[in-house]
C-alpha cells in the first residue's frame, strides 16, 4: 500500500487512531474474560451470553447488508431458519455430527442464496425489503411441508446425537458456549477484514453514492450480490447454532420475522447503523431492556418498538453515532488515513 511520489516521500494508508488502539486492547481483555466464562459463570450466565453473541452476530451481519451495502432486507430470518433446518436435516437424516453440520449449513445456505439473489435483486429499495420477506415465508411454508422433520410442529434432536457431541451435559454447555463465542468473533473479524479490503472501500463508496461508485469502476451489482451471499453464509451458521442450543426446531420459531429480523433491525438502529460498534451497543441496550422489563410481556415489545422509532427520528446515527461525534471514539481500526512519510536514509 505504498507509493513513491516525486518529492521522494512515501505515501501509505494507515488504519485506526489512538482510540482504536485503546479499543483493540479493551476487546482483547474482554475476549479473554469471556472465553473464561465457563470458569466464573453458571449455566444461566452461559446461556444468556450465548444468546447475546447470537444477536451481536445477526445484527452485525444485517448491518453489513443494510448499513454498508444498502440492502435493507426484512427477510434474514430465511437464512436463520434455513441454517437451523439444514443442521437438523444433516444431523437427524444424514447422521452428520452437529458440530460439522454448522459450517456445512452455512455453505449450503450460501449456495441457496445465489438463485434467491437472482430473484430478489430484481426488486429495488422497499420492494427488495418485502420481497426478501416473502422468500422467508416460502421457506417457512416449505419447511412445514417436510414431514421427515416433523412438518408444521417441528422436531427435536435425538438424544444419541446430543450425547455424541460431548459425553456430559456440562461439557456440552461449555462446548456450545465456546462455539458461540468463536462464531461471533469470526463474524466480527471477517467483517472488519472485509471492510479493510478493497471490497470494503467499494462498499463504502456504494453506500455514499452508487453513481459515483459506478463511475469509479466498481461493479455495484456484483459487490452487492457478494455481500448478500456472505451474509447468508454467516446468518445461516448463527441460525444453526441457535437451534442446536435449543435442541428443537419448528417452522414458526426458526423463520420468525419478529425474533430474527424486527429485533435485529431495532438493535442495529438503536446502536448505530453503518458502524461496526453499533450492533454491539444495540445488543447491550436490547438485553438490558429485556432483563429489566421482560415481565411486562407485550408492553416490553411495544416499548422496544417505541424506542427504535424515537431513536430513528431523533438520532438516526444511533447511540454509537452520538458518541463518535462527541468524543471521536473508535473501537475497531477501520478509518483510513493517508500518511506521508519522509524516505530518509536512516532506514537503510
Amino acid at each position: 500500500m505504498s507509493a513513491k511520489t516525486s518529492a521522494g516521500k512515501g505515501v501509505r494508508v494507515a488504519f485506526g487512531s489512538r482510540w482504536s488502539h485503546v479499543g483493540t486492547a479493551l476487546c482483547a481483555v474482554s475476549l479473554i474474560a469471556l472465553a473464561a466464562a465457563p470458569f466464573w459463570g453458571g449455566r444461566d450466565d452461559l446461556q444468556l451470553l450465548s444468546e447475546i453473541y447470537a444477536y451481536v452476530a445477526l445484527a452485525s451481519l444485517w448491518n453489513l447488508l443494510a448499513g454498508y451495502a444498502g440492502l435493507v432486507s426484512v427477510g434474514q430470518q430465511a437464512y436463520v431458519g434455513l441454517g437451523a433446518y439444514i443442521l437438523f436435516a444433516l444431523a437427524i437424516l444424514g447422521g452428520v455430527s452437529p458440530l460439522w453440520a454448522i459450517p456445512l449449513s452455512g455453505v449450503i445456505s450460501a449456495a441457496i442464496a445465489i438463485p434467491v439473489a437472482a430473484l430478489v435483486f430484481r426488486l429495488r429499495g422497499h420492494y427488495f425489503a418485502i420481497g426478501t420477506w416473502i422468500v422467508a415465508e416460502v421457506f417457512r411454508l416449505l419447511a412445514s411441508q417436510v414431514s421427515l422433520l416433523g412438518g408444521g410442529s417441528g422436531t427435536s434432536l435425538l438424544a444419541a446425537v446430543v450425547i455424541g457431541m460431548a459425553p456430559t451435559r456440562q461439557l456440552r454447555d461449555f462446548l456450545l458456549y465456546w462455539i458461540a463465542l468463536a462464531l461471533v468473533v469470526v463474524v466480527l473479524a471477517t467483517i472488519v477484514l472485509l471492510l479493510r479490503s478493497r471490497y470494503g472501500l467499494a462498499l463504502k463508496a456504494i453506500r455514499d453514492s452508487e453513481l459515483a461508485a459506478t463511475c469509479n469502476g466498481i461493479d455495484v451489482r456484483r459487490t452487492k450480490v457478494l455481500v448478500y451471499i456472505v451474509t447468508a453464509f454467516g446468518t445461516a451458521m448463527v441460525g444453526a447454532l441457535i437451534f442446536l442450543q435449543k435442541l428443537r426446531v419448528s417452522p414458526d420459531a426458526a423463520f420468525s420475522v419478529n425474533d430474527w429480523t424486527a429485533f435485529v433491525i431495532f438493535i442495529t438502529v438503536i446502536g448505530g447503523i453503518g458502524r461496526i460498534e453499533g450492533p454491539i451497543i444495540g445488543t447491550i441496550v436490547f438485553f438490558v431492556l429485556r432483563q429489566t422489563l421482560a415481565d411486562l410481556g407485550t408492553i416490553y415489545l411495544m416499548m422496544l418498538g417505541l424506542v427504535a422509532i424515537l431513536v430513528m427520528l431523533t438520532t438516526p446515527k444511533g447511540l454509537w453515532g452520538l458518541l463518535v461525534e462527541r468524543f471521536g471514539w473508535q473501537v475497531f481500526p477501520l478509518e483510513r488515513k493517508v500518511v506521508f512519510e519522509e524516505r530518509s536514509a536512516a532506514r537503510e
Partner: protein
Amino acid sequence: MDWVNVILQGVLVGGLYAMFAAGLSLIFGVMRLVNIAHGDLIVMAAYVALVVTQTLGIGPLTSLILVVPIMAVIGYALQWFVLNRTLGDDLLPPLLVTFGLSVIIQNGLLTLFTADSLKLQSGDIEVATIRLVEGVYVGVLPLLQFVVAVAVIAGLQFVFYRTALGRAFRATADDPAVAQLMGLDNRHVFALAMALSLAVVAITGVFLAVRANFDPSQGPARLIYGFEAVIIGGLGSLWGTLAGGLILGVAQAIGAHINPGWQILAGHIAFLFVLAVRPQGLFPKVRT
C-alpha cells in the same frame, strides 16, 4: 363444475386482496413509502369495527359509517405527526418506523383483546347464496365484497384522475418541490393520502372480519398478500392491482384445492413466477 367453483371463489377472494393492495399502492404512488404496518392497520380496523358494533349494537356493514372516518383521522394524524418526519432519500427511516408501528399495533391489540380469534357476525347475509347455473353457487357476502372492491378501485381511480385532490396527489408524486412552489403543502397532501389509504383499510378490515376469523397476529400476512398483488399487477396501476389481487386469489384457490397445505404457498409461487419472468408486473405504469 368443481374447477369453475374453485376459480370463482379465488376471484372473489382476490377482490379482498386487491383492497389490501389498493391502500398500499396509493401510499407508494404518492410518497414512495412502503407501509409495513399496513396489514396490522387492517387488523386494527377490524377491532375498531368490533368495538363499534358491540357498543352501539349495529351491524358490521353499518359500522363502516363510523369506522371509515375513525381510521381516516388516525391516518391523517399518523402521517402528520410521525411519518412525514421519515420521508427523504434514505429508505431506512420509513421502513424502520412502520416496522416499529407494526410491532406496537400487534402487541397493543394483544394486550387489549388477547390472542383469541374473533369474527364479526353479520346475520342472514352470511349464509345467503345465489345459484348461477346448476352446481355453481356464489355467496352473497363474497359477491358483495367483490363488488365493493371493484367500486373502491374505481373510486380511487376517479379521485386520482378526475379531482383536484387527485391532481395534488399526482403533482406531489411527480415533483414535491415544484408542487410546493405551486402552493401545495406537501405535508398536508401526504396526510390526506394516508387518510384516504386508511379509509380503504377500514373497508378492507370490516370485510375481512365479516368473512373470516381474525386475531392480532394476522397483519403481516395481509401486508404480504397486498404487496404481492401490487407487484403482480404492476406498480402504479390501480386496475393492474385489481388484476394482481385476482391472480393471487385464483392461485391460492387452485393450490388449496390440490392440497390444503399449499394454499398460501401457491400464491407466493405465483408471485415469484411473475417476478422471474416479468419483474415489471403485468400492467406496469410507473418505472422505479
